[in-house]
């Protein structure tokens, strides 16, 4: 014990490296927070002072109202919330249903179907977005929620996780419910689903954030201001010439609050093992 507590040169190097990295990862976030409260001339002052001179609420008003006072921010934020939550729900429902079917039932072609679904993980979204865009144009669902959500209803990774989890689910519970006369769908809904909570949490976080972060697909689908999502809002807000840096940081901070809240309240699902594997549609 005494030996390991000895402060050696090595230890000092380790702590310096870790501290430098800590500065590198956290300062841009602290910068965003403090710049969001600053006036423009304070942000661009050299050297930068980290403490805002006063709380400049105008930045947040500008971020929400937009440079043209249309408050489209509110609509775009709601769009992102709606799409992300819907995708999280459909992913959990469809993936658990499929995972349950693949894990606990024997039928012809079961393995083939599983391998086929796994194979789709090798098809990156970026490689199929042009054909998907043509489908959207053909179905005339551009500028609709259907168009935004449809390609992300379920993910192969979700099916995989659910199947792995349910393979170890005790079959006796299911058989007991069958003897009691419970229907197959009832068993799924009332016994299987409530018992997969850890996977459900991981999977819904994963699906939610992949849509919250999605810029590419909304760029293809939503051209009208009303149907844009929050990443699109921030990118066009940053583009407008008269937008000052403080308002940009205020918009960025506001757009990050839902993820911050999720992260703070469910840290273990972010940091814990399987949650870190990103889904294919990132």
């Amino acid at each position, binding site marked *: 014990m005494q030996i390991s507590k000895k402060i050696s040169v*090595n230890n000092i190097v*380790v702590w310096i*490296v870790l501290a430098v*990295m*800590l500065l590198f*990862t956290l*300062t*841009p*976030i602290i*910068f*965003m927070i403090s710049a969001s409260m600053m006036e423009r001339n304070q942000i*661009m002052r*050299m050297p*930068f002072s980290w403490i805002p001179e006063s709380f400049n609420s105008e930045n947040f008003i500008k971020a929400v109202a937009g440079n043209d006072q249309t408050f489209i921010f509110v609509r775009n934020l709601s769009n992102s919330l709606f799409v992300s939550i819907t995708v999280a729900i459909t992913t959990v429902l469809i*993936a658990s*249903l*499929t995972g349950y*079917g693949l894990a606990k*039932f*024997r*039928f*012809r072609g*079961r393995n083939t179907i599983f391998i086929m*679904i796994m194979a*789709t993980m*090798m*098809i*990156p979204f*970026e*490689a*199929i*977005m*042009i*054909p*998907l865009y*043509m489908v959207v144009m053909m179905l005339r669902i551009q500028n609709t929620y259907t168009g935004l959500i449809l*390609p992300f*209803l379920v993910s*192969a990774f979700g099916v995989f996780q659910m199947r792995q989890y349910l393979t170890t689910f005790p079959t006796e519970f299911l058989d007991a419910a069958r003897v009691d006369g419970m229907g197959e769908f009832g068993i799924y809904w009332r016994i299987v689903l409530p018992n997969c909570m850890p996977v459900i949490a991981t999977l819904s976080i994963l699906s939610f954030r992949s849509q919250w*972060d999605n*810029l*590419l697909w909304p760029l*293809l689908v939503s051209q009208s201001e009303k149907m844009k999502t*929050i*990443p699109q809002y*921030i990118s066009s807000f*940053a*583009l407008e010439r008269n937008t000052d*840096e403080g308002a940009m940081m205020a918009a*960025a901070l506001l*757009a*990050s609050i839902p*993820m911050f809240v999720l992260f703070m309240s469910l*840290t273990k699902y972010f*940091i814990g*093992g399987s949650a*870190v*594997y*990103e889904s294919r549609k*990132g």
Partner: protein
Amino acid sequence: MGMKKYRGIEKKQARWGFLFVVPSLLFFSLFSFYPIINAFYTSFFDKRALSKAPPAFLGLGNYIRLFDPNRAASELSFLNSLRATLVFTVGTFVPLLIISLLLAVFISNLGSRKAKKFLQIAYYTPAILSSVVAATIWMIIFDPRGLGNQWVNALMNTPGVDHRWLVDPVMEQVSTMVIYFWKYIGYFVILFITGLASIPPTIYEAATIDGAGKGQVFWRITLPLLKPTVVLVSVMAMLQCLKTFSTQYMLYTNGAPRAPINVITFNIYITGIQQQYLGRASAMSVVLFILMLMLTLLQFKTTKSEQVEY
């Protein structure tokens, strides 16, 4: 009698199982298999969005155009995109891999549990911001009067120098790498910490008793045992880098020059969506798909042959 009834139940069960799988089957057929087949098909045609006439068959024409060396000099050429993607991928994933492994080893060896947890969370925090937000923050940091110049000038003792982060072709590529590195470093640190945790501590104890030094333990024991994780993480990092889009999009739309950061996905977007050359963009998509497929298959092959038994 009993046998017959049993077979009946089994049949019914099979029907339910299939029924549960049907929604996914439909989804993946329509939104994964059909589009990728369609991408291959469309890549052989001169398809443009606005023309009503059936598209002309080009054979390999689109591909020949993509790889035409005479076009390589053009800033919008696909060969340039391949170069940009390769530079970005190598320039991002190599530092990501080495530094995240180093940090993971450091963190795993810390005595204090609280410090371990705190560092993991702190390093991971940038990953929860969306790519657009990350790019926006860094664009202000990379402003000529911003923190980027102030930091670098303080470190290198070069007061007042503008490093032209978003203007100079080389610096612009470095900037995209820094943003990406910043966003994903914590994520890969955690992957490695998970991998390191799966190595039984008894192995280290045995090695230390045998008199191995810290460096020796790392090179002779940790690294070989960690090889499956290293392979997995590097392929994941490479795949992630090949798909990069938002960072480049943000920088370009804010006035940074296009050619140095015109990565494949960005080129597909501009060619297919803005210029509406759907056939040509499909050919690019197919090349991207094949690139990523080869990487994934390589990973499967390596992880299969490199199974480590403790």
